[in-house]
């Protein structure tokens, strides 16, 4: 089951440059929330703060409160590794492990965390590949082919399966379809629709039609600030803020 995320006064920096300013946001469980905004407004930074990937950059820093179920992920004594296991991530560019077979790519998160039960692994790998709509295309060469030998769209679905295999509560997706053709894109959108039943999905996108298609809620970011956050329909039809309106009507950005 997905869980909600409560973001309170989240700030993030790259060195001296502040990339996020006091973000407050209440992300509902089992829904998809879209993050939109012009390039460089802090969308990636924001989602990377939600699973503490932001701080993997040497001079990056984040501060604030991000409550996921019963845990403040920025609380004292919380290990980033545990956070990331519960909050999975799919990156903008497909990044399968090139030295591993398709099977091992999907199993990596479990195997490398010490999970050894082979039968259970087989089940999870199949289930994850089915959820990411890739199973039928790869089931015959799971262990024969490298993850890098798939097409871009297949690779991205492989990365989704890999993220699902560790059974997170939340799935963060940073422009998951931006490098893909229309067919792969629509497959991934269908997928997001299904994933919502079991996960909370946060998806960054530049494509407003995509946001409208997959997400119930949309957040509009500008210059590191959250300008407006509401039902997708509301954002796209009657936004409250002038800047949101300007952006979605294409007047800037």
């Amino acid at each position, binding site marked *: 089951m997905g869980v909600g995320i409560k973001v309170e006064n989240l700030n993030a920096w790259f060195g001296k440059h502040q990339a996020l300013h006091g973000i407050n946001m209440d992300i509902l469980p089992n829904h998809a929330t879209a993050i939109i905004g012009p390039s460089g407004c802090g969308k990636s930074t924001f989602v990377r703060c939600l699973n503490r990937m932001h701080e993997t950059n040497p001079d990056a820093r984040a501060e604030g409160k991000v409550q996921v179920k019963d845990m403040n992920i920025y609380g004292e004594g919380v290990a980033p590794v545990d956070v990331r296991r519960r909050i999975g991530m799919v*990156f903008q560019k497909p990044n399968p492990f090139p030295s591993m077979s398709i099977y091992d790519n999907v199993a990596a998160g479990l195997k490398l965390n010490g999970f050894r039960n082979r039968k259970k692994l087989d089940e999870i790998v199949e289930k994850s590949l089915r959820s990411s709509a890739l199973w039928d295309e790869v089931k015959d060469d799971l262990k024969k082919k490298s993850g890098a030998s798939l097409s871009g769209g297949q690779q991205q679905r492989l990365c989704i399966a890999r993220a699902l295999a560790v059974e997170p509560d939340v799935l963060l997706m940073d422009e998951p379809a931006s490098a893909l053709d229309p067919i792969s894109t629509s497959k991934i959108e269908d997928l997001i629709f299904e994933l919502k039943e079991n996960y909370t999905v946060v998806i960054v996108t530049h494509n407003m039609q995509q946001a409208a298609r997959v997400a119930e809620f949309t957040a509009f970011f500008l210059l590191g600030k959250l300008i407006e956050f509401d039902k997708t329909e509301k954002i796209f039809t009657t936004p409250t803020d002038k800047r949101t309106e300007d952006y979605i009507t294409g007047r800037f950005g």
Partner: protein
Amino acid sequence: MSEATPQIQWHRRVADKLATALAVICVLLVILPLAAVFIYLVIRGVGSLNLAFFTHIPSGSPGEPGGGMANAIIGSVVILLIGSVIGVPLGVGSGIYLSEYSRGQFGKVVRFTADVLNGVPSIVIGIAVYGLLVLRQKHFSALAGGVALGIMMIPTITRSTEEMLRLVPNSIREAALGLGIPQWRSTLSITLRTAMSGVITGVMLAFARVSGETAPLLFTALGNSYWSTKLNQPIAALPLQIYVYALSPYDEWHRLAWAGALVLIVIIVATSASVRWVASRGFAGGAQ
């Protein structure tokens, strides 16, 4: 445009052919000396290769026919093993440190040290190990020889490992971290594994380089005309034996030296090939 096109194409085609031809010539120029050395070694050395060469130690009196290099072959294997046991883990380990963990000043110091050590002549390393180990132990030893070769391997392996790990795209590391895999695990099982063939190439280059080293062994392993596999005793080694035999005035020993050189090359090539073969089978074997 339609008039200019054929001419441009003509120019391009010639340029293309020229570039290809140049590349081919360069390749030939590289292969030529390599092949020449190998063929020459085979011609000169293969005649003296017989069972005795691999099973006997040198004959008692100088220049007398018969005898072999069994002790030197085993000695080289022993010294190279010691060298690799020291050089490979330390070299790969510091390479990993430089590429994955070092941020700031200390990393630069380590890198600079490795580069300087890389440039130190091998004989100097031999003398250093002589001073640090041989003088203290009061005798030459296989161990000292292995240590000298190991020290020589470290900087080469460190730098090549670092370079190879740097070629692994950052997105791969992010993918691993994003799955909640601990950094050390992701470094070993994913980053290092992705760069494995390059890292192995670096290790094999270092191995091949020290395999033929004579100078650092003169002060450390010393050489031995008799059987010895004791680590704290002087031990024979192929390069040492070749050196002694090649400088001797006896034809018989010259022939043995050629055979020894051939065996040395074969050992290097065989090690390199088998390590690669083992590593290449790794692909679908699974995350460890």
